[in-house]
């Protein structure tokens, strides 16, 4: 679940910002540290709020360019509550850490820890009612990563495969 391109993406953005500052002319001095410092603080903030209920709103904000995400939907013929229970059960079996779960919202969030290679990944499972049936929306978000180079999509596909396989009882 980690992307080795995490720092490359951040470095590209930072270099871009520095070049923009240089292009603006004048003596930059240590002012280049401002975007570096700001983005680092913002990334630490994004990681710190990962367990928070409102983190998803921050990650999905249209002005937040420091995230990469992938969204996939599974259509099922299962009742929403049963599908929610099934998802929670499968997550527990796979020993992933549930950071947030709400039966009322039918939302489960899991997170992978931050490491030297990654800022960690947040994956949201949302059960959406479709009449008697339900759809499962899997949203994989990598905060702090501008580009995930398909890693998010790959992880989402793995999760979809795992959940679909779990319907073989």
């Amino acid at each position, binding site marked *: 679940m980690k992307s080795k391109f995490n720092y490359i993406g951040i470095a590209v953005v930072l270099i871009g910002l520095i070049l923009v500052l240089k292009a603006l002319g004048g003596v930059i001095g240590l002012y280049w540290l401002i975007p570096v410092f700001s983005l680092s603080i913002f990334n630490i903030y994004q990681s710190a709020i990962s367990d928070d209920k409102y983190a998803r709103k921050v990650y999905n904000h249209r002005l937040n360019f420091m995230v990469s995400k992938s969204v996939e939907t599974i259509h099922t013929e*299962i009742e929403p509550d049963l599908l929610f229970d099934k998802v929670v*059960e499968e997550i527990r079996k796979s020993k992933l850490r549930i950071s947030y779960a709400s039966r009322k919202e039918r939302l489960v969030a899991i997170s992978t820890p931050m490491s030297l290679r990654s800022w960690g990944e947040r994956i949201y499972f949302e059960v959406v009612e479709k009449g008697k049936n339900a759809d499962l929306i899997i949203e994989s978000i990598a905060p702090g990563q501008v580009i995930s180079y398909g890693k998010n999509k790959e992880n989402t596909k793995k999760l979809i495969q795992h959940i679909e396989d779990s*319907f*073989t*009882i």
Partner: protein
Amino acid sequence: MGIIVNLDVVMAKRKMMLKDLSKKTGISNVNLSILKQSKAKAIRFSTLEVICEALDCQPGDILSFEK
């Protein structure tokens, strides 16, 4: 219609609750509910075996085919 799972019928005949069957077989309540509602994608022989053993029945009692 295809394959129909008659687990609820057999359970009712044996007067067995879902949680009791879950305890006896080691299959989770959620998976038994999915199976009972015929929403499972497939069923393993091992699963069928433990259910048949717990309910003292034949696989044909649990599964049927309807056109």
